């Protein structure tokens, strides 16, 4: 029986290693400096061998992802604080259910939601809509991990703070949050990594762009290119040159996600000295 279990485990893990292998080997050979300095332009650029790259994608991704963070971190942590620090609040059971529901919803639906909420009224696809869509992906994760991190701090710490006369809000901000900061940051990291890999919500919100915008504000107000969405477009395009750029995009995205994964694992392992 043990042999069967070992074989099965190997069969499950093998595809992962194969995927990583192919992404790395194909991606490395496709990486070049142009990737980080040139825009994509039309397909003819690549086909004719003229310089082409994904710099607009990289910037777009940064803008959209950090906008999403800026929205999701306050909301997620605020909700997490509500759940953990005010456990008696009547809305908490509902909040938990709603948060779990939101968490379990496919990301594509969050994209459709952001489309109706932002793109339609604005009349255009935009980086702003993309950021909002990704924040919908991040928020439930951050709320859940925040609650969990804060709850892991013993109640006695709060009592100690109150006993020396601190108001409740100071107790939370000055004693509980610092104690939980590893868990909080890890939660944000996990949410960020999840959202950074999502393409579906961006297809209907930031939409994509083959060029850099004319001004910085253009990242927010106009359609914008992001790495996951661009990877999708490149992969399904009929141009071999774009396919190889797709592998380059894949290795960048994969590398980023794996770094976040390792960082999150490392952080949570450090908390527990007895393994």
């Amino acid at each position, binding site marked *: 029986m043990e042999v069967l279990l070992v074989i099965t485990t190997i069969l499950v*893990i093998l595809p992962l290693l194969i995927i990583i292998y192919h992404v790395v080997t194909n991606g490395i050979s496709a990486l070049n400096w142009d990737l980080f300095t040139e825009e994509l332009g039309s397909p003819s650029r690549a086909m004719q061998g003229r310089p082409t790259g994904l710099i607009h994608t990289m910037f777009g991704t940064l803008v959209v992802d950090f906008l999403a963070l800026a929205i999701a971190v306050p*909301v997620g942590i605020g909700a997490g604080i509500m759940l953990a620090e005010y456990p008696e609040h009547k809305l908490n059971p509902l909040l938990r259910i709603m948060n779990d529901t939101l968490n379990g*919803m496919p990301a594509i639906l969050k994209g459709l939601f952001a489309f109706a909420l932002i793109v339609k009224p604005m009349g255009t696809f935009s980086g702003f809509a993309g950021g909002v869509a990704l924040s919908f992906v991040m928020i439930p994760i951050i709320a859940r991990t925040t609650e969990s991190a804060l709850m892991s701090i013993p109640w006695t710490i709060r009592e100690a703070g109150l006993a020396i006369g601190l108001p409740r809000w100071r107790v939370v901000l000055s004693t509980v949050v610092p104690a939980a900061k590893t868990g909080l940051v890890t939660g944000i990291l996990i949410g960020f990594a999840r959202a950074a890999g999502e393409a*579906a919500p961006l297809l209907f919100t930031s939409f994509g762009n083959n060029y850099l915008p004319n001004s910085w504000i253009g990242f927010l107000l106009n359609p914008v290119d992001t790495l996951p969405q661009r990877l999708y477009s490149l992969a399904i395009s009929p141009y071999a040159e774009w396919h190889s750029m797709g592998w380059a995009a894949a290795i960048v995205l994969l590398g980023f*996600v794996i770094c976040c994964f390792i960082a999150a694992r490392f952080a949570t392992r450090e908390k527990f000295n007895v393994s």
Partner: protein
Amino acid sequence: MARNDQQADSQMDLKKSPSALYHWLGDRIFSSLSVTLGITIILLALGMAWVLFAEGAAALREFGFFGFLTGTTWDPAVQLQFGTWPFLFGTLITSGAALAISIFPAIAVAIFSAEYAPRWLSAIIDNLVQLIAAIPSVVIGIWGIFVLAPWLRDTIYMPVYLWAEASMPALLPLLGNPIGYGMATATIVLSLMIVPYTTALTKDAIRSVPVAQREASRALGATRWEVIRMAVLPYARSGIMAGAILSLGRAIGETMAVAMLIGNKNTLPFSIFGAGATMPSVIVNEFREAVENLHVSSLMAIGFVLFILALVINLIAAYITRKLSISGGQTI
């Protein structure tokens, strides 16, 4: 909270000192802020359901809810007829098959990690399995397009198709076009992607089986595997089932890898190797180009159906956890 208010109020009555204000106002602002942010989430969840419904209402009104759900014609070009059944069918088949393929391997990995492997190996296995879930769907998609699909075509689909052509031609319609991009490939990729969810919950459930149960089983003369079969797995079954249902929930919502590998055919019948579609895949394929309002509305309505389906699955998982759990409601 109430007690603090009372204390603070009486402090305010006694002396309206700045520090009392600092306490009271600070607490008020802080709690209001937290609650507002918490309420935002509630509003988001409700808002999403509402918006999907409202945007899809036009289509639902046009075809009737059940008409829309069961209609088999999806024609944005000529007839402007939108029936979701092909995509609902595609979703159910691919997700169901993916669950069926992945469930036993996923449980086996959890058992090996929890019961047999030494701690260092267990940690490595767990991390690698969770890494599967962390890989972005588009990355798996591009790998699928350029590596997996051609390999499957050459190693499995074509040989089987050629064999059927020679020996059992009646099977051909069932097999379909073996070019590599289709239902089978999408299902295979899907089954890999959902393994981590079953494995994680199964491992948690296994680890929460009390030592006393294992000891009682051992004392009867059970081998390590017999202990697992007799005492551990039955006790853990609610957790295992919850993991499986959670995996199903993820499978139905999986978008990019499926959209990139499923071949995108909107009309039934689907075949094993041949192209097909799922609810998320058709939305991805058509939304950006959809022009007709009815088309957009229909895609939104599919989103609403997907929402309902995901909600139902999550509720079932929660119900199973509560009903079947022996120690009474282990939280997922």
